[in-house]
């Protein structure tokens, strides 16, 4: 049964886990390959889907914007401008992070959860290894490269918009590029990357928490992955709201 106390306990355990990520670090010679593997699984392995989604959603954003701007007084460059703003501010950092909560998040929860139910985590503990450091730290480090993924999403989103706009006959390349360059505000980038870093932290830690502290058997691994996805997305949306009101509001 879920009482408010259980929620508080969970939050407490989560913060203790965060502290334990950095406690009693694993030998570097053992840690290094783990980090490389997680970079491969979590970052490189996500590029394909992120590129695909960004490109096409960028295209859709450009088409929708131009379809909705029917008034002749509106300048043509607005399509490029609006596409850039929505992609850099929200689509790339937030929307992609929700997708990553599904992809990377459920991968993290199910792989750590499987190690829990098959007693591999107990085996680590018995050897005197800090299981949280061993399992979560490499994911945490791998996800510090997450802004790189988001930059690619931004670039491809804007490119997708350009291609959809030009080849769909919604505007010219010159207008679009003018719009993309218009009123460029560096702080928007900073804002987007602050969000990205915070989301990366959530993506590394919340799914790890649900995997590491799960109880039960194989069936519960599936359930834990779902719960982890729900809570990671909820936290991303909430933190997004908070950061936006703090930084831009």
């Amino acid at each position, binding site marked *: 049964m879920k009482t408010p106390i259980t929620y508080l306990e969970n939050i407490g355990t989560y913060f203790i886990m965060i502290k334990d990520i950095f406690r009693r670090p694993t*030998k570097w010679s053992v840690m290094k390959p783990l980090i490389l593997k997680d970079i491969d699984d979590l970052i490189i392995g996500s590029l394909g889907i992120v590129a695909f989604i960004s490109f096409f959603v960028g295209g859709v954003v450009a088409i929708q914007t131009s379809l909705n701007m029917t008034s002749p007084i509106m300048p043509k460059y607005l399509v490029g401008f609006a596409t850039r703003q929505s992609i850099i501010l929200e689509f790339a950092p937030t929307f992609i992070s929700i997708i990553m909560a599904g992809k990377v998040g459920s991968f993290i929860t199910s792989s750590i959860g499987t190690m829990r139910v098959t007693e591999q985590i107990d085996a680590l*503990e018995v050897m005197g290894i800090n299981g949280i450091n061993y399992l979560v730290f490499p994911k945490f480090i791998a996800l510090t490269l997450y802004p790189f993924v988001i930059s690619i999403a931004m670039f491809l989103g804007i490119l997708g918009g350009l291609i959809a706009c030009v080849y769909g006959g919604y505007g010219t390349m010159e207008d679009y590029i003018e719009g993309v360059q218009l009123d460029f505000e560096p702080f928007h980038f900073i804002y987007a990357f602050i969000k990205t870093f915070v989301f990366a932290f959530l993506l590394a830690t919340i799914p790890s928490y649900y995997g590491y502290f799960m109880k039960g058997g194989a069936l519960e691994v599936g359930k834990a992955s779902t719960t982890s996805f729900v809570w990671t997305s909820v936290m991303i949306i909430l933190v997004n709201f908070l950061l936006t009101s703090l930084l831009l509001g």
Partner: protein
Amino acid sequence: MIEVKDIHKSFGDAHILKGITTSFEKGKTNLIIGQSGSGKTVFLKCLLGLFEYEEGSISYEGKNFSNLTRDEKTNLRAEMGMVFQGSALFDSMTIAENVMFPLRMFTKQSKSEMEDRVNEVLQRVNLENAHNKMPSEASGGMQKRVAIARAIVNRPKYLFCDEPNSGLDPRTAIVIDNLIQEITDEFNITTVINTHDMNSVMEIGEKIVFLKDGLLEWEGSSETIFRTENEAVTNFVYSSELFRKVRKMYLEEND
């Protein structure tokens, strides 16, 4: 030497261990027997500090485990080897990497020294040709033997095995029993084994602890177990006709 005093362990309302007191001596193979569900695995996990218990104390060489500092616990655990009932191999590593893992973690040996040692222990568990297999490609019995190799590779001072030879054929089971006995003698380690295997009980049981319903019902050795009048023990150990015959022969020979 591991001393256990009055251990109580519950999960919610289920009282699993109801006050167990015993000790496990150095250089001896200590066996814990009892019916399925009697709490053997839970007891072993309490010994290792994987489960917290509500009451009682467990001490290693006179030092209460729960009072150790974090570093002391880490150091003590680096001296333990454990074979889990389900093997608990790291499924992202090959068999050889699994066995090498404790060496990479806790020693400063060179790669070739570690490889030599891994070859040596894999040979002792009859697995010389499985180095590059993944655990998922190995049979259950092979996984068990890899787990044993991993537990002994770093020459532990304490060896815990949860049913090391369940799922093994009789021949391999004997090889494993003998191996455990040998390294226990050779390196004077404290070995605690959970088992159902009556063959192990009679072959290598220097001390035998019989658990029943969360209590220590009887303790003795592979000799006294032939002579015990304890009904719970005889019902359990001599439930098969074969072992009743074995007991009869033993008593005839030794009287």
